[in-house]
């Protein structure tokens, strides 16, 4: 089965990203396909590579990066939501004259059309949020 996954909350404040991660891992282990994981609203904050959680806690961003690498996942971050919240890749940082970029590897910034396209292609949309 083909899934589109949507994550609406950032890491740590809400369980949404953890739950979504566990769902994706279980679905992939069962041989399902995840067309795209789309990060929207505060969910874009999952993509920062600058988070430094304590060593005895999980690093949610790194977990997504590892899962993304293992399964060649499309981890899409909404550009409009990201710009609002200061999540910039190299190109965006240059474009807006900012001195840093902060998107972790594997994650990439894209438009909302990619969320709708994923919903069109997928058999199921599963949404995680607050």
């Amino acid at each position: 089965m083909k899934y589109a996954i949507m994550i609406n909350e950032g890491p740590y404040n809400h369980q949404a990203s953890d739950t979504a991660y566990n769902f994706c891992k279980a679905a992939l282990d069962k041989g399902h396909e995840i067309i795209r994981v789309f990060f929207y609203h505060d969910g874009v904050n999952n993509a920062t590579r600058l988070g430094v959680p304590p060593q005895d806690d999980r690093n949610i961003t790194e977990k997504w990066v590892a899962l993304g690498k293992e399964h060649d996942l499309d981890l899409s971050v909404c550009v409009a939501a990201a710009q609002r919240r200061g999540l910039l890749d190299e190109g965006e940082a240059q474009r807006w004259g900012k001195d840093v970029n902060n998107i972790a590897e594997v994650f990439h910034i894209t438009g909302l059309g990619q969320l709708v396209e994923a919903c069109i292609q997928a058999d199921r949309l599963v949404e995680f949020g607050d």
Partner: protein
Amino acid sequence: MAILHTVNKSPYEKASLESCVQRSDAGAAILLIEDGVYAALAGGAKADLVKAALADRKVFVLEPDLKARGLADQALIEGVESVDFDGFVDLTTQYDQVNAWL
């Protein structure tokens, strides 16, 4: 069509479950996740919500969330079925669509 509804809020804090129970159709399923799992406790004052749903819908609870909250040994409302993440995935395949009551 039958929908899998997910509810992630405690019924003691938010009205999401009530809203879901009022607007989910016979044959649908409700999966309690995250803080939604508190609704599955047998002795709770809000247990009637889940009992009402069980009349013509299935109700599931995500066991890892129960365990995380120290509720693994608590009595659940009769008829509520526990699933793990594999079971969550299976439910999304068994029902036609998924709707999250955020």
